[in-house]
C-alpha cells in the first residue's frame, strides 16, 4: 500500500466512523427535546422515560463523536500538512466557529445529562434545545469547510502560488449552501428513521408497549419530513455539481462522452432519454460534459463514485417513499402499529439513512479526486512526507473496529431493550 493510499484510507476510515456519531449527535437532541416537551405537556411518564433513555444513548454517541472529531481535526495536519498550511488561513474561520458551537453543545449536554435534578424543568428543556441548535451549527460549519475544498474561493494566485486573501469569501463558497442543506437534512432523516425503525422492530414483537409506540411516533416526526424533503435538496446539490464540478457529475452518472440531451442511466442497459440533462440543468437539451472533456489524469474513480451515487439515490428514494406512506397514515390519524407491512418497511429503512450518508460522502470525496482543493492542489501534493503511513492507518482502523463493537453492544443494552411498562 502506498503512503498516499494509506493516508487516504486512514482519512476515509476516520470520516466514515465519525460521520455516524456526528449525525446522531445533530438529530438525537431534537428527539430528546420533543419527548421531554411532551412529558411536560402530558405528564405521561412514558415520555420522561424515553427522554432519559435517549439522553443516555446520546451521551455515549456524543462522547465517541467528540473524541473521533478530535482525531479528525489533528489528522487534517498529520496526514495533509501541505493542504493545511495553504488552506488553514481560509477555512480556519468555519473551524473556529465550529469550535465555539461545539463548546456550547458540550456544555449544555453536560447540563442536560447530569442536571435532571439540579436545574429547573424549563432550564433543562432549554439546555436540550441549545444542544440541538449548536449541534446543527457545528455540523454546518464543518460542511462549509469541506464545501470550500470543492469550490475554493477567497484566494489569489501570485507568482504561481496560491495565497489566502479573503476568509469571508471562502466562507461564502458556492458549494456551502447545497452541501450544508443536504447534509443537515440527511442527519435528521437518517437518525429519525433509524430510531423509528428500531422501535418498529420492537413493536413487531410486542405491539402493546406504549414506550415503543411513543418512540416510533417521535422518530417519524423528525425523520419522515426530512426524508421527504431530501430529494429536493439532492436536486439542488446535483445542479450545483453539474455547473461547478463537471468531472464529479460525469463520474456520478458515468457519462463518458459529452452530449446534449443526455439520458439517465438507472441500471446497466436501462436509461431514460433526456432525463440527465433535465435533472442536472432543468433543460432536456442541455449539454452534459463527459469524462472525455476532462484530462485522463484528472478523472476520479468512476466505478466507485457511480456505484456510491446509485446506492445513495436508491436508499434515499426508498426512505422518501416509506416516509410518505407513514406520513399519509399519520395525517389521517390512523394507527400505524397494527400495520405489519409498514412496520417491516420501516425496519428496513432504519439503516438506510446511515448507509446513504456514507455513500454520499464517498461521492463527494472520491468525486473530487485527484484534487484535495478542486483545481488548485492535488491530494498527492498535500500528503505528509513521513513514510510508513500504513502503520497509523492500521492502528486507527483497529481502534475504531473495537470502539464500534463496544458502542453497538452498549446501545443495545441502554436503549433497545425496552423497559417493562
Amino acid at each position, binding site marked *: 500500500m502506498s503512503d498516499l493510499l494509506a493516508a487516504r484510507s486512514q482519512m476515509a476510515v476516520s470520516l466514515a466512523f465519525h460521520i455516524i456519531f456526528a449525525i446522531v449527535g445533530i438529530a438525537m437532541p431534537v428527539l430528546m427535546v420533543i419527548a421531554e416537551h411532551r412529558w411536560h405537556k402530558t405528564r405521561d411518564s412514558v415520555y420522561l422515560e424515553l427522554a432519559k433513555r435517549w439522553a443516555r444513548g446520546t451521551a455515549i454517541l456524543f462522547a465517541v463523536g467528540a473524541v473521533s472529531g478530535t482525531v479528525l481535526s489533528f489528522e487534517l495536519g498529520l496526514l495533509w500538512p501541505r493542504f*493545511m498550511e495553504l488552506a488553514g488561513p481560509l477555512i480556519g474561520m468555519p473551524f473556529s466557529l465550529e469550535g465555539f458551537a461545539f463548546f456550547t453543545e458540550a456544555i449544555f449536554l453536560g447540563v442536560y445529562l447530569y442536571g435532571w435534578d439540579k436545574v429547573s424543568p424549563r432550564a433543562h428543556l432549554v439546555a436540550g434545545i441549545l444542544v440541538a441548535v449548536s449541534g446543527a451549527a457545528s455540523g454546518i460549519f464543518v460542511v462549509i469547510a469541506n464545501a470550500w475544498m470543492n469550490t475554493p474561493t477567497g484566494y489569489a494566485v501570485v507568482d504561481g502560488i496560491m495565497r489566502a486573501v479573503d476568509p469571508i469569501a471562502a466562507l461564502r463558497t458556492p458549494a456551502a449552501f447545497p452541501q450544508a442543506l443536504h447534509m443537515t437534512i440527511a442527519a435528521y432523516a437518517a437518525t429519525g428513521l433509524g430510531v423509528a425503525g428500531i422501535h418498529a422492530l420492537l413493536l413487531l414483537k410486542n405491539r402493546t408497549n406504549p414506550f415503543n409506540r411513543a418512540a416510533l411516533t417521535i422518530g417519524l416526526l423528525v425523520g419522515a419530513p426530512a426524508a421527504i424533503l431530501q430529494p429536493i435538496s439532492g436536486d439542488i446539490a446535483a445542479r450545483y455539481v453539474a455547473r461547478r464540478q463537471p468531472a464529479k457529475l460525469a463520474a456520478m452518472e458515468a457519462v463518458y462522452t459529452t452530449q446534449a440531451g443526455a439520458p439517465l442511466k438507472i441500471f446497466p442497459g436501462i436509461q431514460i432519454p433526456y432525463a440527465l440533462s433535465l435533472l442536472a440543468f432543468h433543460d432536456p437539451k442541455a449539454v452534459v460534459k463527459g469524462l472525455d472533456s476532462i484530462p485522463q489524469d484528472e478523472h476520479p474513480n468512476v466505478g466507485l463514485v457511480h456505484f456510491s451515487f446509485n446506492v445513495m439515490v436508491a436508499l434515499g428514494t426508498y426512505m422518501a417513499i416509506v416516509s410518505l406512506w407513514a406520513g399519509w397514515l399519520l395525517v389521517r390519524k390512523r394507527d400505524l402499529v397494527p400495520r405489519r407491512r409498514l412496520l417491516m418497511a420501516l425496519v428496513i429503512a432504519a439503516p438506510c439513512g446511515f448507509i446513504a450518508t456514507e455513500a454520499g460522502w464517498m461521492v463527494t470525496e472520491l468525486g473530487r479526486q485527484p484534487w484535495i482543493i478542486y483545481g488548485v492542489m492535488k491530494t498527492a501534493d498535500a500528503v505528509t512526507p513521513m513514510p510508513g503511513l500504513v502503520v497509523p492507518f492500521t492502528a486507527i482502523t483497529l*481502534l475504531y473496529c473495537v470502539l464500534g463493537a463496544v458502542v453497538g453492544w452498549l446501545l443495545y443494552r441502554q436503549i433497545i431493550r425496552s423497559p417493562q411498562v
Partner: protein
Amino acid sequence: MLFFSHTLAGIILIALTAYVLLGGADFGGGVWDLLADGPRKMRQRELIARAIGPVWEANHVWLILAMVLLFTCFPRAFARIAIALHIPLTLMLIGIVLRGSAFVFQTYGGGGGRVFAIASLLTPVLLGMCVAAVAAADIGQAAGIPGGTFYAVYVAPWLTSFTLAVGLFTLTCFAFLAAVYLTLETRDAELQADFRLRAIGTGVWVLLMAGLALAVAPHRNVVDHRMAALVGIAAVIAFWSLWQRRYRLARIAAAAEVALILWGWGVAQYPYMLPPDLTIAGAAAPLRTLELSLGVLALGALVLFPSLFYLFKVFKSRN
C-alpha cells in the same frame, strides 16, 4: 500585524492553559482512579467519576480550540509540528479516544475502567513530550535535515531524556491538580483527607520532576527564570494551604503554579513559536485572517464564558 500575531499566540497559550488546568485535571482524575487504594477505594473512584462526568467534554474542547487557532493563524508552525511530531501526536490521539470512550462506557455500565485509567496515564505523558520537543528547539532542527534517516527526522526530536522527563512532569502536574481539586469535590472528611495527602505527595513529586527535567534540559532557556521564581512562590502557598486544610486557596495556588510553568515556557521561547528559527510573526497567516480570527474569538467568548459560568455554577457551586 505584530500586535495581531502576538495577541493570537497569547490566546493559544491561554487556551492551552485552560486545557491543562481543566482537562489536565480530568486526566489526573484517571490517574487517581488507577491508584485508588485503601478502605475507601470505591468511594474514591465514585467521587472521581462524579467530578469529571458533567465537565470533561467541555474541558476537552480547549485543546480543539488551541489546535484550530494554531492551524488558522499559524499554518506554517502547525504543518511543521504535524510532520515532525506525527508519531507522538497519533499516539496521544489514540489515548484521547480511549480515555473519553472508556470513561463514558464505564459511566453507562459497560466496564472499561482500566482502559480509562491507563489511557489517562499515557496521554498526558505524550502531550508533555510534544511540548518538550518544541521547547527543546528540536522540531526546527529536524525539519531542516534534508534526507535524514527516519529515526533522525521523525523519532529523535521527541524521544530524548528531556522530553521523557517533561512527559512524566506533565503527568505529575495533572495528578497534583486533580488531587487538589478533589479535596473540594466532596464534604466527606475522610475522602478529603485522602486527597489532601495525595495532593501534598504529588506536590513534592512535581518539584522533583521539574528538577529532573531542568537537569537534563538541552539548553538553559527552556523556562524563564523570573517565571520560575513565581512558580516557587505559588508552590509554597499551595503546600502551606494544603497543610492548613485551606482547600480553596490551595486550588488557586495549585492552578497558578501549573499555569505559571506553562507561561514560563512561553516567555522563555518568545518571540519564537518553534525555536530556533520560526518566529510567531514568521509563522503567522495573512493579516486579514488574524483580524477575523480575533473577531470570531471575541464573538465566541460572548457565548462561551456565560455558558461555562453556568455549567460550573450548576455542578461545582457547592465547592
